[in-house]
């Protein structure tokens, strides 16, 4: 039995919802998954690198760097993501000098504006997560590493980063889920990811509740997978803690 036959075998209506239509539109909505995941992965990756820099600036003793990092985080955490997206996509077009410059082909595309907004946004939240992780490293560990002669990069690579990474992992998992949800906002600037496609189908058939429900289920599945990956990573990086849990 192929998928179309399967959909037709379902009742036409259930609880007032057009079930066949929901079934039929599932493949179309799934067509938005690659773009959603692409947006999430690219912005998480670049955002993480940016966040690393911001976190190091934040804990550095240089007051100038400190203030820059602080204001960056303050702005991006204090305003809604939607404003940030609109400011980049619609806002920058107000200035002729941007429209005439070489960056315009970049800012003209909703895709790049979406990625830029998501990246800048996640960088601010991730910077705080990394800072929290770095500051959670017990001072005794650093002291003892110094005592046996580690310093600089070696100290970071062998002691600070692994501990900080493990500490920050659960919070970073939450941030990943926030990003998956955040990508739905770029549908407002014409990008055809899951929510964008949902809106397109709804404009055609006018069945908003059915289609948004299917889209919601798809997001739930993606986020479920993300939580499983994080859970796996947590066990993978601290297997001895899992052992301790079991024997307790």
């Amino acid at each position: 039995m192929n998928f179309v036959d399967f959909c037709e075998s379902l009742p036409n209506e259930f609880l007032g919802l057009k079930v066949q239509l929901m079934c039929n539109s599932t493949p179309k909505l799934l067509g938005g998954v690659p773009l959603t995941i692409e947006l999430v992965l690219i912005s998480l990756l670049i955002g993480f690198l940016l966040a690393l820099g911001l976190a190091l600036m934040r804990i550095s003793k240089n007051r100038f760097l400190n203030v820059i990092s602080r204001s960056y985080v303050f702005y991006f955490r204090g305003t809604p993501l939607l404003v940030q997206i609109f400011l980049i996509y619609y806002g920058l077009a107000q200035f002729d000098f941007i429209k005439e410059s070489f960056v315009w082909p970049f800012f003209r595309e909703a895709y790049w504006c979406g990625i830029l907004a998501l990246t800048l946004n996640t960088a601010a939240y991730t910077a705080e997560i990394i800072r929290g992780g770095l500051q959670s490293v017990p001072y005794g560990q650093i002291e003892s590493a110094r005592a046996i002669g580690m310093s600089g990069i070696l100290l970071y690579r062998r002691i600070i980063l692994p501990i900080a990474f493990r500490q920050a992992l659960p919070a970073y998992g939450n941030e990943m889920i926030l990003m998956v949800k955040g990508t739905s906002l770029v549908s407002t600037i014409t990008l055809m990811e899951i929510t964008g496609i949902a809106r397109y189908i709804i404009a055609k058939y006018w069945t908003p509740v059915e289609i948004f429900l299917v889209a919601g289920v798809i997001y739930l599945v993606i986020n479920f997978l993300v939580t499983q990956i994080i859970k796996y990573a947590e066990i993978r990086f601290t297997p001895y803690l899992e052992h301790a849990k079991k024997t307790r």
Partner: protein
Amino acid sequence: MDSFILLRFGDTGWGDEMLRAAIVTILVSLSAMAIGLLVSVFATMSKLSSNGFIRSIGNTYTTVVRGIPELLVIYLLYFGANNAIMGVAKKLFGYNQYIELPVFLIAAIAVGIISGAYSTEVLRGAFLAVPKGQIEASKSVGMNKFLIFRRILIPQVMRYALPGLGNVWQLTLKDTALIMVTGLVEIMRQAHIASGSTYSPFTFYITAALLYLVLTTASSRVLNSAERWANKGVRRA
């Protein structure tokens, strides 16, 4: 500067409209937070229930609402709420007329349902943070369930939950930006309208961003002093 002319108060500028929109944002956030707290009290009770079925209702609520994008929750309620209510009215009362809920109400309920899911997690954590020994002790001096709730649990849960609820408030405030899709004229919608008719999107969206910054900064001030107030009886090392 052209931008400042655009933001003037009165009939010639958009300043007063933006401020009025900010008040709408505050009102929606407050209503949503109140609705969310109400929902979260019940959801927390259900999540901490010893009955597996009741527990699964609370768990499903928090998992689903925190797992799907806020924008979808708002769309679903915006398009679904009127139909659902009309369906119920038809079934129960045979009422066949068209019913339309006010947009403000739908927006507040939608954001309230979202903020309720996060508040539930905060409240649950706060309840579990109350040491078990205290509840045992209050039982042993003869308090009944209600009295324990009122005298032992509530005062401490409120203190434990305050920082978390503060975070939920900030989230709620920012989530109200999404209700622009319902057409309710809050900060984002107003900025959208204004930039559409003046061709100055940057001016208005940056104004919107600044308004949100003012709101989040002001609320974090208030929340900090609320936390200080709630913790004034706590001994610190």
